[in-house]
């Protein structure tokens, strides 16, 4: 696909309120830069993220979707991220199965203290999505001829 040099990916990052959103805040107050392509949506817990939101984002033009939550075992609601982990494991496996490039989805556990990890995660994720170029597959899974 033709990718212009100035092409910027659209990245949606779902962050749980208790760990990862706070980790993103810490990245901010520590001035740890990551690309402006990343837009964060706050959710109470990673388990609030419905696979439909992720598919929706892709369908509406997102090039990458990342979900960040508390580390397993550290969920504010005790168990939320464990459910999220299973859901996302299956969803990502399905997306791989459909031939959607694997670099477009990711789950990362980022604690409130991990500003550095948040920034590093976003940098590496964006880099990967940029390398893949614009997402057309999920937006175009059902081409009507």
């Amino acid at each position: 696909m033709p990718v212009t040099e100035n092409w910027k990916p659209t990245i949606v990052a779902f962050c749980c309120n208790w760990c990862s959103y706070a980790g993103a805040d810490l990245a901010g107050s520590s001035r740890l830069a990551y690309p402006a392509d990343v837009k964060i949506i706050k959710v109470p817990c990673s388990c609030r993220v419905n696979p439909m939101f992720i598919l929706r984002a892709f369908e509406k033009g997102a090039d990458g979707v990342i979900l960040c939550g508390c580390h397993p075992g550290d969920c504010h609601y005790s168990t939320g991220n464990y459910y999220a982990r299973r859901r996302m494991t299956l969803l990502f496996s399905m997306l791989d199965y459909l031939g959607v490039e694997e670099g477009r989805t990711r789950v990362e556990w980022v604690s409130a203290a991990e500003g550095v990890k948040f920034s590093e995660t976003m940098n590496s994720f964006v880099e990967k999505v940029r390398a893949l170029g614009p997402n057309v597959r999920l937006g175009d899974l059902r081409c009507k001829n």
Partner: protein
Amino acid sequence: MRRIGVFVCHCGSNIAATVDVKKVVEMALQEQGVVHAEDYPYMCSEAGQVRIAEAIREHQLTGMVVCSCSPRMHEATFRKCAERNGLNPYLVEIANIREHCSWIHKDMAEATEKAVILMRAAVAKVHLNAPLQAGESAVTKRALVIGGGIAGIQTALDIADAGYKVDIVEKEPSIGGRMSQLDKTFPTLDCSACILTPKMVEAASHENITIHTWSEVEKVSGFVGNFTVDIRKKARYVDMDKCTGCGVCQEKCPSKKSLNEFNRGLNTRSAIYTPFAQAIPNVPVIDATACIKLKTGKCGICEKFCQVGAINYAQTDEIITEQYGAIVVATGFDTIKLDKYGEYAYGHSKDVITSLELERIMNAAGPTKGHLERLSDGKAPKEIVFIQCVGSRCSDDRGKPYCSKICCMYTAKHAMLIRDKYPDTNVTVFYIDVRTPGKNFDEFYRRAVEDYGVNYIKGQVGKVAPQPDGSLLVHGVDLLENKQILKKADMVVLATAIEPNADVRKIATMLTASIDTNNFLTEAHPKLRPVESPTAGVFLSGVCQGPKDIPETVAQAGAAAVKVIGLLAKDKLKTNPCTAKADELRCNGCSQCANVCPYGAISYETRLVNDHGIREDRRIAVVNSALCQGCGACTVTCPSGAMDLQGFSNRQLIAEVDAICR
């Protein structure tokens, strides 16, 4: 259609230097439903809030978006401002254009573009926000303190003095913690036991304090104001009510080979023991792994000698369940294991010891009865070398990246005490930096140098080589002289890094309190909320939050107590109205949501439903909003979308997604 106002904060130059705030205002006015938009240097200021109030009135706003710092900073401020001015606080959304935008991006065009998108997402969400009313929940007026060291004792005393009941859970047989192991304390050199024991006694005799020693927290459920905690009271095999603490059992016990934990394993103790003379309660425990009777069924000597019949080999662990409104973590610290520091010959030579072991050696109740002697041959050491920063300030995998904070001061203390009591013993300290911020701290260190002649050498030690004659050859460096130093010593003391108690991870998990990469508990805000955990109702006291000395620990313990008292003083707490809710017309009654609810907040009832004219009895999910904490796990298990989360509804989140991807 909502009438939405957008308020863009400059945050001085924090936002405005990187984000073109005027442009954000201009773009906001083009959004559907936005009837007013303005920017202001400090929206959170009094004057900023007045402007918001005026805009709400003038434009009859039914929703508002503040583009500012993180909602974790000022969401509450702006929601209160809205509420005061007649707008439901849950019709306010924050677009985080500082932490998530201006502070991490350098290019103004790029940052402005992102700020506009974040604003749009917030506007899109507000369109779908519903006015919500916070509920209320009762507060259990009792606090739990986990850990009975100086931090836990002080917190408990302060809470108890304010008139609230408080329980201390301590896993060891006695309260007292690390401080009870110390000999003297810096910078005053007063005796640790002399200042600690009265507090222990006060805690034990306080009418509002219940102490559970030899006990551990097993399970925690509930939430702020309403925690339910299971406490395992480990079998003591001694009846607390009957025992008089006479100590005969310990003298008579034939199993005396167990390492004495209180003396850091430097000597041994009996199988039935109290850790130290001033133990509270002064009731021994039987170490089941060492007791001959419990292991083989034969012996029973302690039972025979106990005149009051307090020994009970049949005791078992007991689980008690208690209710608390607040929980304080005061689990303290331990020194790190030194098995990865073979170059210092710890474990290889008995005369290489940690500072905490030296505390026990210097203490009159310690393994050498307070005489400074080598553990290898009992001789008095004439040359002692202290090595600083053993395992602290390390970025490798052997040690800890942080400064343990207390070592510089206790080393100065040890050096001074030794020089004072044994003037013919030379003391050398190898240091990297001497860190003495604190009242009278640097003066204290200087006294060690100037008045006591302690030899401080700037430079680290590379190796400690035990010699055939029993001495230790210390290979160090003097960086100021630029010389390698070979120093023969009789004893080497390692200022070993401290780390949070190993149990803290387990406890943090039970409390869902967050923990950092070094296993220190995270505070809600590093500057402004240093004694609160981000988990409501959980507070932090002492070294579990970060390295600190005794005065700091006591100060923090008091601060944590004040926070607890402030919580317990309330009769009711406002509850989060962002709870789950089932739509009876869509609900299948399939029970999947209840399976994932961590709070047991979902039940089912059969209800007559009128579904577009069809009237039938249906099994419908019902959420108990007092129990629901709003995680949203249920919403995703619900295939029909009947279960939704107020404040973070499916449609709201999809609107945000759409706005970002637009």
